[in-house]
């Protein structure tokens, strides 16, 4: 019998279950795009059939890191840039959990960029939502890795000399098996994409455009947006890596020309998740490791029986 009865529980789930009973109201600024992520996530999880007790949200630092403060599930508000490695281990230790990692663009593409690259490469089976507002918000408006070239801020008074990170292209190259972009102003698309990401078996990366009305007034409010999967002007196959790459590049260029393109850019349903790869080579148990510590009948192996003879 499982020590985790919440995992795999079949029942009707009300979206309100994800709203905390105490302090449900976020401290984000009025008009902040982060509200959009919260709402979309609350909508997606019940539709994906996952309950609060079987969901673990792992966040980084910044306004985005507070997501799980306003969200009723298990949560781990980690440190700047490190949500992904914490999330990876949680999923390996108990694959039955629904793990959602989240953080900002500085968190994921800057300080945590190394983890982003490797998590995508390894194709861990969870969803990663990057709140991309093209700026450092909580520390009051400094230039971030996704800020456009020439972006002026108190830490880049002469304007940034750097090309911004291309989040979608980077994700694809690194190995993510699901890559999407949505925007806070596009709640239905956001909910649907998050739901698809949750149901995807592998690393699902969503670059979520979240306008910062306080510190990034120059930036677009990410309207009007165009859904590249729906709009007839765009014709590409998200299961085709080359076409996806081209579409991503066009999307990244367009953003800085004032055109907001969103949608599902890439999906590879055939690539095994990291968990599956690891099981394939005999490096991960079939039964979740977390269960073992609650199993009174498990016969724990001893070094005296396993290794000591070799030392005699």
């Amino acid at each position: 019998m499982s020590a985790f009865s919440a995992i795999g529980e079949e029942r009707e789930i009300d979206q309100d279950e994800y709203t905390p009973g105490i302090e449900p109201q976020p401290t984000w600024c009025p008009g902040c795009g982060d509200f959009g992520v919260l709402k979309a996530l609350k909508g997606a999880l019940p539709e994906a059939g996952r309950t609060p007790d079987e969901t673990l949200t792992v966040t980084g630092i910044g306004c985005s890191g507070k997501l799980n403060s306003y969200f009723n599930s298990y949560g781990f508000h980690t440190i700047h840039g490190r949500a992904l490695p914490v999330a990876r281990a949680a999923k390996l230790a108990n694959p039955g959990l629904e793990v959602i990692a989240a953080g900002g663009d500085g968190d994921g593409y800057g300080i945590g960029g190394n983890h982003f690259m490797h998590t995508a490469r390894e194709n861990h089976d969870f969803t990663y939502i990057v709140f991309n507002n093209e700026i450092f918000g909580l520390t009051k408006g400094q230039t971030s890795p996704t800020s456009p070239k020439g972006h002026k801020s108190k830490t880049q008074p002469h304007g940034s000399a750097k090309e911004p990170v291309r989040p979608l292209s980077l994700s694809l190259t690194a190995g993510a098996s699901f890559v999407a972009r949505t925007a806070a102003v596009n709640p239905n698309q956001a909910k649907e994409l998050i739901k698809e990401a949750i149901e995807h078996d592998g690393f699902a990366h969503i670059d979520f455009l979240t306008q910062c009305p306080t510190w990034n007034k120059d930036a677009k409010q990410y309207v009007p947006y165009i859904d590249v999967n729906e709009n007839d002007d765009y014709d590409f196959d998200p299961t085709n890596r080359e076409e996806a790459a081209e579409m991503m590049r066009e999307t990244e260029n367009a953003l800085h020309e004032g055109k907001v393109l969103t949608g599902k850019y890439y999906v590879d349903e055939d690539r095994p998740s990291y968990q599956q790869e690891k099981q394939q080579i005999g490096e991960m148990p079939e039964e979740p490791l977390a269960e073992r510590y609650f199993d009174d009948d498990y016969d724990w192996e001893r070094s005296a029986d396993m290794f000591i003879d070799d030392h005699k």
Partner: protein
Amino acid sequence: MTDDELIWRIAGGSGDGIASTSQNFAKALMRSGLDVFTHRHYPSRIRGGHTYTEVRAAPEDVTSRGDGYDFLLALGDSFARNPQEEAYYGTEEIKPLSENLDDLREGGVIVYDSGLIDADEVPNFDQRVEENNWHVFPLDLRGLAREKGREVMRNTAGVGATCAIADIPVEAIEELMEDAMPEKILEPNLEILNEAYDAVLEDYDLSGVEVSCPDGEHEEEQVLVNGSEGIAYGAFDEGCRFIAGYPMTPWTEVFTIMSKVLPDVGGISEQVEDEIAAASLAIGAAHTGVKAMSGSSGGGFALMSEPLGLAEMSETPIVLLEAARAGPSTGMPTKPEQADLEHVLYTSQGDSNRVVFAPADPAEAYDHARRAFEIAYEYQIPTIILYDQKLSGEYRNVPASHFDREPNPDIGQTLTEEQIADAPHEPGGKFQRFRHDPEDGVSPRSVPGQKDGRFLASGNEHNEAGHISEDPDNRVAQVDRRTRKLETIREDLDGNGLNVTYGPEDADYGVLAFGSMVGTVEEAVDRLNDDDESVKALAVGELAPFPEEEVREFIESVDRVMVVEMNASAQFRGLTQKHLGEYGPKLSSLLKYNGNPFEPGEVVEGFHNTVADEEPTDHQTTFVPAGGD
């Protein structure tokens, strides 16, 4: 120790099989009933370079390397760089011979591979041989190996010669080879071993050689184990089934052992992109209810500073290892030092909230690893095992029964779903994971996936359900509770036997040491007492929370204390004075930081300086007299 011992040094280049040959040799002597101890010296280089391993064997209690050694087996360095004029590294081909002469005792034995080493190139060789009354055996080991098998088997030829000269039954080595070697290479090796053995007996008159291997007998079965194995097996027996890491010398040894064994028992090992990730993965696994560890050496451990703080703040039980080596920065990657003490105690922002253990030998490495897991999970706190390059690869014999213990997979105060149902929740429905009120400081936890156990873990200061809080009353309550855990742990550890006194209880003088220097200090204490001095030692195995009472009693019981440590800034003395400042004037320091661990004789000499209040020393050690007066 008595004179009844053999210290055998095998020297060559990295990649020449020095480590495995010495390990087999040590095991053979252990099986013959002797106590053994190995000391290795190697460069940060894959192939070639000056490498040696010493095997010291005696009938009883060998706890350290010796002062010098008495038998050199100098093999060729197959990967020696071509000598160039002006090259600062000199002729590497002769180094297995030339680099090892300074430490060879008078009357010692030299066996060298004349097939690869030209002794004429070693400056003043003949003169030194004569002055020191060394017995020299130039043998074409390479030629012999090539003739009967392959060139790499010249190690075996060297061991065969060793057996003949030092009066070791060749059967002891044969038996070991049969256990360790695959059929294909076993036959030629056995042939080479015996050929070399016979050749020495036939060609040389050994009557003048006084170096020989003593006899011994063990009361119970022994196993040959090094510090890294001790730690890994301790972790294993505590039910640790998750490790994450990034390679770095010398921590890699534990990581390698765990990575090999965990998949066989349904555990998980993860080699990840950096040490920040490694420690973060350990946190993620532990948060999810699994017993997890990570670790690194100096520079890699520095990267773990921030996750370490997260584990402290979120009260996530993890065990981290710090296998220290000479620093700062890359320092000397394959050389031991104890200069990471302060780093381990204080790294990461805020008031540190951790437990630090320092085992002294492979048996203690096992014990401390088990205790580190018990404390981490019982008290929901990161624990760190601080050891070093010396202990990690140092082999000693330990009674096999030492490891014959029950496993302990307990994950501490973690509730079941039934218990969670009765546990306090906040009105909004979240479980109160971080309650203010537990007297011992430990607030029971839930694990993701459990029904109604939802809470928020956070690196931010937080309220009882884990939500971010900057309320002053809550802040004080949470800090006080986390601090209370350390007080409870201190009480729990008292009388645990992890701090060990050695020598006569009523001695006049004391020596204070921690970690890998303890065995050397013990031998020095024995020698001093044999020499009519009155000395005892205290080995501190728990560095945080500091065992103030035990150390205070020790210092008060003697006139003066010398603190022995491998670093330049007397960090351990500093730690002692931080807690017991009033005894500052009683404490002197003996320091060494040249990349080589202390020899017992250096500690003996340092002690004489302490008593006489003198500074000079013949060795590369530094004596710092007590302040005050």
